[in-house]
């Protein structure tokens, strides 16, 4: 025993990655225990971006809360809007005009493209192609944001949707510009796939890395590209169709291995499916009002409602409780980012330090949504 004590004692190095770190996508903190370059333990530390959005919502009217939802997942504000207004409509029984449903679907799919573009760009950033891919992705994202700006007047925090429809109708030049974008985007996606998919270092770094088996993914209640990358074809747009989605043809891309590379591939494939949906939505676009008239202050009957949608990051659920007041009694979000993030520890333990960042990037979380 005493002989053992005399031997050189080693202990793992504790490294605090974040909250100030170029690759933690906001203010995530990983308390990583390292043995050399190998991760032996990882503890996520959350809460640096907590703004109490759920509590704030209890002091705002139902329409005002829309602006708070923008700040949850700030790279996919449209889908947050959509989940929230759907919950309000369910709660108070507001009917949505046909045209508004189509506009919502167009916005949600454009948002998915914009969000996935950021995810891919930052994923490659984490891999070490510093800045290159992200700037290419931003080039296309800008065009999507231009469209959003045209419709809502905002580029990030849109607050475009309202209970009963959308705040204003699409401007006349919106559809032509959207059509032009739809024609351009496949070429850009081809460009990414040419540059990234067969890159030897990308393959070496991401294949068989951070493998999330399907059963684990389901047990962790993961959703979105993280779940579909593991080969589970679950997509709320098909599983529980909402809005105008039942009217569109599209496939659910899935991965086979559940590694970081599959999650990347699923994102690219999903963007192409979004294009298909957009194409159909533009062709079928009905005319009519863009919003049903609702009272100034919505006072839903007492009760609760849960609405969920397939946001770019996964299943985004909103649970609302009303006590017949002008503001929600309780506003609860099921953030896909947070729930997907819970898989992170299992994925990174045993990997190298550099992989930890890549796996985290491949899960694509948004800290605004995780902490709220």
């Amino acid at each position, binding site marked *: 025993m005493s002989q053992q004590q005399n031997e050189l004692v080693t202990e793992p*190095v504790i*490294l605090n990655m974040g909250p100030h*770190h*170029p*690759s933690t996508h906001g203010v995530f903190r990983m308390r990583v225990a390292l043995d050399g*370059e190998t991760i032996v333990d990882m503890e996520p530390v959350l809460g640096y971006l907590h703004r109490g959005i759920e509590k704030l919502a209890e002091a705002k009217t139902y329409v005002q809360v829309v602006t708070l939802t923008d700040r949850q997942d700030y790279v996919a504000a449209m889908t947050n809007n959509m989940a929230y207004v759907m919950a309000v409509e369910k709660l108070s029984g507001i009917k949505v005009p046909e045209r508004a449903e189509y506009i919502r679907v167009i916005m949600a799919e454009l948002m998915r493209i914009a969000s996935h573009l950021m995810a891919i760009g930052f994923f*490659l*950033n*984490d*891999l*070490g*192609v*510093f*800045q*290159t891919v992200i*700037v*290419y992705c931003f*080039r296309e994202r800008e065009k999507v944001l231009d469209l959003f700006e045209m419709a809502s007047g905002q580029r990030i925090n849109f607050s475009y949707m309202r209970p009963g429809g959308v705040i204003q109708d699409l401007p006349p030049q919106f559809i032509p510009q959207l059509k032009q974008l739809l024609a351009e985007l496949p070429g850009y996606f081809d460009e990414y796939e040419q*540059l990234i998919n067969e*890159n*030897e*270092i*990308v*393959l*070496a*770094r991401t*294949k*068989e890395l951070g493998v999330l088996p399907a059963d684990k993914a389901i047990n962790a209640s993961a959703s979105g590209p993280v779940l579909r990358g593991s080969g589970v074809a679950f997509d709320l747009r098909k599983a529980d169709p909402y809005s105008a989605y039942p009217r569109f043809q599209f496939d659910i891309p899935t991965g086979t291995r559940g590694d970081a590379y599959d999650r990347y591939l699923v994102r690219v494939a999903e963007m192409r499916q979004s294009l298909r949906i957009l194409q159909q939505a533009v062709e079928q676009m009905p005319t009519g009002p863009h919003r049903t008239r609702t009272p100034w202050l919505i006072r839903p009957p007492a009760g609760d409602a849960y609405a969920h949608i397939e946001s770019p990051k996964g299943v985004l659920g909103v649970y609302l409780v009303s006590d017949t007041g002008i503001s929600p009694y309780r506003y609860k979000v099921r953030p896909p980012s947070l729930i997907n993030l819970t898989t992170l520890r299992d994925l990174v333990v045993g990997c*190298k*330090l*550099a*992989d930890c*960042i890549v796996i985290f990037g491949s899960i694509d979380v948004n800290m605004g949504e995780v902490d709220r």
Partner: protein
Amino acid sequence: MPRVWDNFVYNWLAGFLQDWVAFLIMGIVVMAIILNFLALLVMVLQYMDRRLIARFQVRFGPNRVGPSGLLQPIADTIKLLTKEDLRPRLADPLVFTLAPLVVFLGGTLAFAVIPFNRSGFLADLNVGILYIFAITSLGAVGIFMAGWSSNNKYSLFGAMRAVAQLVAYEVPVVVSILGVVLITESLSLVDIVEKRDIPLILLQPLGFLIYLAAATAEVGRPPFDLLEAESELIAGYHTEYNGMRWALLQLGEYVATFAVAAVVTTLFLGGWKGPGPAVLGYVWFMLKALFVYLLILWVRASLPRVRIDQLMGFAWKFLLPLALLNVFITAAEALMWPDFPWLLVPVNIAIALGLVVLWSSLFQLRAYRKVEA
């Protein structure tokens, strides 16, 4: 006495002074020229770096200070000079201060033996290549000093990676050069350039590729920039540095990278040789060196970073065996055809391509192929 300059200034000085006085004066003058040249060159390289990388990344790059942003490096230098000189309280003051100097020296001293032209060099050592490899390794010491003394875990990781990486890649770098030495039968850089009429890249394509890859790793440029891996280690070994100390570290890195480009130019691309009068040799040398630098830059803009285990595997399992094979093949050729006929050029290129392809199929960066099999 080693071979000295054969230019009119030196000849004129030697005409009325004693030999060693003329040698001393000339040496100091050339040293001053080279040092100032390097300081200016780094500005040019930095500007080139930022503008070209910006182009690769569909953006504009610096274009506000001066015409086309030409004065940006000067503005940056002024900014860095006037910054507050911060040092972490728990850093080792002496080592922390010395480290940037050591890093800078490592790159700079290599230029003492690099011939910019037939007589445009500071010294023509008969062991020039050995000198270069010895002196550029100094950079590793400096980087380790910087990482260790900062008292920061990211810096420490950067330093540890740097040591592992630079020591590992030293081996393929040196072995890949042996082919050139076998062909030219000399270790002096001037002799190497003058010995053969054709650029040695044609006779040593494999050596060229190995040297370029290994040397890129040795100076820590992407895709082998693990020592400062931005997305993992924030800034690696220089996380705690700022102001002029940081600038010196950057200067050292740029100079070291350009030293690699200069060595590649000298060994493989025929150095100063090119059409036109002798004085154009400087221009040819710079053009070739900047082209090699551009290659290194291009890789930076387009490739992801490799992981530490893949990096080590690449050095020991891929580059080193190929470099050894290259030495054997070159030695055999040197024995059989001592004057290296032109016929060997296509043969060598074919051998190089064949070996690279063969070895790529034997050695995989990706581990998953094994899983599938």
